[in-house]
């Protein structure tokens, strides 16, 4: 399913993205940042608002009335990022239970589409599992499926 998305800007390494959320509370600058974790090839997906002092805040729930559009925009960066880094795995966790639930719903609602290109895992009760709908995961890991050339 195709959702409306915001126009993204990016720096040349394709690891830091920005867009402007426009909603009931006005314009809010959002930043998405992929940072490699201590595990080689696993990147943390960071996402938050730029506050009036120019500092990043990934805790505040903005409630700008455009959460689906924001989520779709963030999700689209996964395609951009893994196009450049096809072997990267992306780790994502919300800054609150509500935001983690929003991530889960975003994945679940588009699971068929996502599974065409990615393997998706959910973490719960100390273990990783293959992602399924209706499980209240605490974190997620997504990795682009390896391309298989049937002619080789």
């Amino acid at each position, binding site marked *: 399913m195709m959702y409306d*998305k915001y*126009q*993204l*800007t*990016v*720096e*040349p*390494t*394709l*690891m*830091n*993205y*920005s867009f402007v959320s426009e909603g009931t509370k006005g314009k809010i600058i959002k*930043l998405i*940042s992929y*940072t490699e*974790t*201590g*595990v080689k090839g*696993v990147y*943390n997906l*960071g*996402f*938050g608002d730029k506050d009036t002092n120019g500092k*990043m805040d*990934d805790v505040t729930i903005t409630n700008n009335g455009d959460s689906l559009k924001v989520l779709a*925009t963030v999700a*689209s*960066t996964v*395609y*951009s990022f893994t*196009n450049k880094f096809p072997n990267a*795995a992306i*780790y994502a*966790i919300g*800054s609150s239970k509500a935001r983690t639930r929003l991530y889960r719903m975003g994945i679940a609602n588009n699971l068929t*589409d996502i599974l*065409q*290109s990615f*393997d998706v*895992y*959910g*973490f*719960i009760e*100390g*273990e*990783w*599992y*293959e992602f*399924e709908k209706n*499980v209240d995961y605490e*974190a997620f*890991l997504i990795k*682009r*499926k390896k*391309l298989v050339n049937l002619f080789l």
Partner: protein
Amino acid sequence: MNTEDSFKSKIPKLTIDKSLDQYVGKVIFKEKLDLANEMLKKYGVPNPETVKKYSETHSKK
């Protein structure tokens, strides 16, 4: 549309913004990264060969 075409069709159009260069090589969301590192160190990453479905191991009786 094959899988690769489907993937490519979802890549967003991007505009380069030089002001974002300030974030290159920096950890912007440190608390979140620390949390990820702590969790990954303790539990590792999923093994595609052995990972199961939660519903298979926690089926209702």
